[in-house]
């Protein structure tokens, strides 16, 4: 699964996700990626989210929307909302999970509970960074 989130100079937020699913998946099986609110979500003024991991759990938890809701209604920061989701995915569902998210102020969160997550970002300083493990 691959995904991207962006904040532009006019303050607009967007998210996109694309996937092949998983190895040996049943024919017709669909995970969270194409389900708006589960694997992908964006709302101006709050944040944009793109998820990766075992899709069935993200669907049941409406995970991407959950991050937006935690920030909108519970006043959580991007970091608090995304950490809560990913760490809970591990403790409650024992599944590998990760996501990238950016909020309206340009803060970036990229939590994951697996050994690694291929990821990259360019923030306000314009510096390009990529990583694969907890490096």
């Amino acid at each position: 699964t691959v995904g991207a989130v962006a904040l532009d100079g006019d303050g607009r937020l967007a998210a996109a996700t694309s996937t092949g699913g998983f190895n040996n998946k049943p024919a017709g099986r669909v995970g969270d990626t194409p389900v708006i609110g589960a694997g992908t979500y964006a709302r101006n003024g709050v944040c944009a989210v793109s998820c990766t991991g075992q899709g069935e759990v993200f669907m049941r938890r409406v995970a991407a929307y959950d991050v937006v809701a935690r920030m909108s209604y519970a006043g959580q920061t991007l970091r608090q909302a995304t950490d809560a989701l990913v760490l809970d995915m591990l403790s409650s569902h024992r599944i590998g999970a990760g996501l990238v998210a950016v909020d309206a102020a340009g803060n970036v969160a990229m939590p994951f509970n697996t050994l690694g997550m291929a990821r990259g970002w360019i923030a306000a300083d314009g510096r390009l960074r990529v990583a694969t493990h907890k490096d």
Partner: protein
Amino acid sequence: MPSPVIAIHGGCGTLAADLQSAADWAETRAHLAAALRAAWRILAAGGAALDAVEAAVVVLEDSPHFNAGHGAALTEDAVHELDASIMDGATMAAGAVCTVRTIRNPVRAARAVMERSDCVLLAGAAADAFAQAHGLACVGNGYFTTERRVQALAALKARAARGTIALASEAERHG
């Protein structure tokens, strides 16, 4: 107004070093950087976040190192069924496709669904036909296949035949 930002992922999991050669890892990182640059060119020129996320995902779909587009996992029937979505936070508009088999860049089809249909999600052969009707690049299903995925599927099926699939690692299961 805030400074532009782009962030991407190429999937999470074991990413065990021994699953890929050093050259593969170097190319994986290079393709991540290429995706960021594709998005940043748009943002730095005052472009929209929506265009930036689509551009970044297209680069990753075209890379053999990620489970999307070229390089995607195989189903139990040894074919590719791909899913993608996109959402514009400014308008709450969204588009998605699922279980498509012939669209070279599924994220572009997701955007076409968002902008050129009344739907949010189109599925299967109808989504493939919609993409073709809207002039998107279409390919044979084999375009998405890589040797690594063929071997991964064979390994998992061999485990199933031996009755040891429960011992399969996360990397074997999900790729």
